[in-house]
């Protein structure tokens, strides 16, 4: 679907140093959006044609309100595209393609473990919401650079969900010092006798982190879904710009399109070696 999304909220999120933004767009995308899907957004007002940047930006959907026809996008300003996007004002209309891709799946019952690295937390919030509505038990493992980051990137709204939070920071300023996988491993170790089949994990974050989470899950026989990221061209599966390498059931390496077949894949099918 190609729509004009009207900017209804566009604000800085937390500490300005973190360069995080919250963008709420009004439009019909919310009616069909699922957690883990994304939109391809034109960063400049679509009434002015500009070719730098040329392409749309893929941004994961961080909030879905179908009653109000609103989706929330959370992003970090880290390049020319997001620099320009950050200038959009309330009332502006932005051209949005979406919802795109395949999102996370949920088990019918049991426990859902969310594992996030940095801003990989953003697409997990609507997933937590849906899982809780369905009556699943949810817990979050979230690692970030420091306290300022976690607080800026929405820690209070996670606390409001009333689920167990296992936080870690690289500098130890909040939660445990170290990587997010450390805490997950500890708990898996403790609960491994009882666990196994009833835990499902969903991970989003840097590639190395998702690879580590996948390996960890494999060791404890926990099924995990990961949300991959790649430079995208068309965002609909036509240009083959954003392929990832998977290994199929027969052990053959295949390519899938992150934009159309993903961005969410089963962790165990992903080939993490970058030379593929």
């Amino acid at each position, binding site marked *: 679907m*190609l729509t004009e999304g009207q900017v209804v909220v566009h604000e800085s999120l937390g500490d300005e140093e973190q360069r995080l933004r919250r963008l709420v767009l009004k439009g019909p995308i919310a009616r069909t959006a699922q957690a883990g899907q994304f939109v391809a957004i034109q960063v400049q007002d679509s009434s002015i044609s500009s070719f730098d940047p*040329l392409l749309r930006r893929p941004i994961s959907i961080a909030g879905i309100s179908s009653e109000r026809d609103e989706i929330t996008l959370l992003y970090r300003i880290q390049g020319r595209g997001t620099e320009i996007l950050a200038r959009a004002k309330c009332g502006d209309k932005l051209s949005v*393609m979406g919802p795109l891709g395949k999102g996370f799946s949920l088990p019918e019952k049991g426990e859902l473990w969310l594992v996030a690295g940095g801003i990989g937390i953003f697409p997990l919030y609507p997933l937590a919401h849906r899982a809780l509505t369905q009556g699943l038990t949810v817990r979050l493992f979230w690692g970030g650079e420091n306290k300022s980051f976690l607080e800026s990137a929405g820690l209070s709204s996670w606390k409001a969900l009333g689920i167990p939070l296992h936080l870690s920071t690289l500098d130890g300023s909040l939660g445990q010092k170290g990587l997010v996988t450390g805490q997950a491993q500890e708990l898996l170790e403790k609960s491994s006798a009882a666990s196994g089949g009833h835990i499902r994990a969903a991970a989003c974050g840097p590639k190395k982190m998702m690879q580590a989470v996948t390996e960890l899950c494999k060791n404890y026989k926990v099924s995990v879904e990961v949300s991959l990221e790649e430079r995208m*061209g068309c965002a609909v599966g*036509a*240009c*083959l*710009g*954003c*392929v990832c390498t998977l290994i199929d059931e027969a052990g053959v390496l295949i390519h899938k399109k992150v934009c159309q077949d993903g961005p969410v894949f089963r962790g165990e099918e992903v080939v993490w070696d970058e030379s593929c």
Partner: protein
Amino acid sequence: MSPVNLSTQFAGITLRNPILTCSGTYGFGEEYAAYCPPEALGGITLKGITPLPRLGNPVPRLAETPAGLLNAVGLENPGLEEFLKSYLPKVQKLPTAAIANISGFSLEDYVLLARALQKDSGLAALEVNISCPNVKHGGMHFGTDPQSAQEVIAAVKAETDLPVIAKLSPNVTDIVGMARAVQLGGADALSLINTLLGMHIDINQQRPVLANTFGGLSGPAIRPVAVRMVWQVFQAVDLPIIGMGGITTWQDAVEFMLAGATAVSIGTGNFINPQAPLEILQGIQDYCEKRGLASVHDLVGLAHRA
């Protein structure tokens, strides 16, 4: 005012209008259907195929540049057998003309592909990619040497009853010489232009952005080069031209037609605006109406009058 006649005929190909989509930017025709109804297009040029399946290049395959996009996909495709089995039946159901695009690493590759693709496969034409810059020992060799280009087109022509379109590389000194060579080889039409070879270096990481180092540049950045080449070839060679290279608006499309393109093809422009083909068609139609032209074909080469 009577409506403008949009139908476009050339080289035994009949299109309902002059708007095509470029190979490699439109998949096998279904990917964009939710955004741009295929029946509104003159035709779709399919993703290039090779005899055997190819995984293509590693990622990153894309790099943005000002008004441009570098790509190094490396001809990822399911291969001929899988194309015939799984993709062609769907292509045949597309409510628009479909042009297959073939690539090879040897003359035999092209012969094999051309032999398998005939009029009875329901295709409108065969576009021969002799200009892919993204694979080692790839089509590029055929696209930069006139003698090889002539041979490969002649070989394809001998194998298929479909109209043959030669897609030329702009990475040559003399585009007219290349056009003449493929004409001698028996090409029925030309696609001008493929991407320009380029690269982009990440100054923070101090290494090329693309895993393949080099890539093909497309997008508005290359449009003036493409228009110039269409202009030159139109003057010198009597073959219909499909103009492409950075078309994003109807004004761009009109420019190509005035330079000598009989039809135009939208590639990277689809990524920016998936409804670009529809808007471009409407814009061309309005332009013709305003100028009192009865047929869109009347635009072709009009800028050469003076």
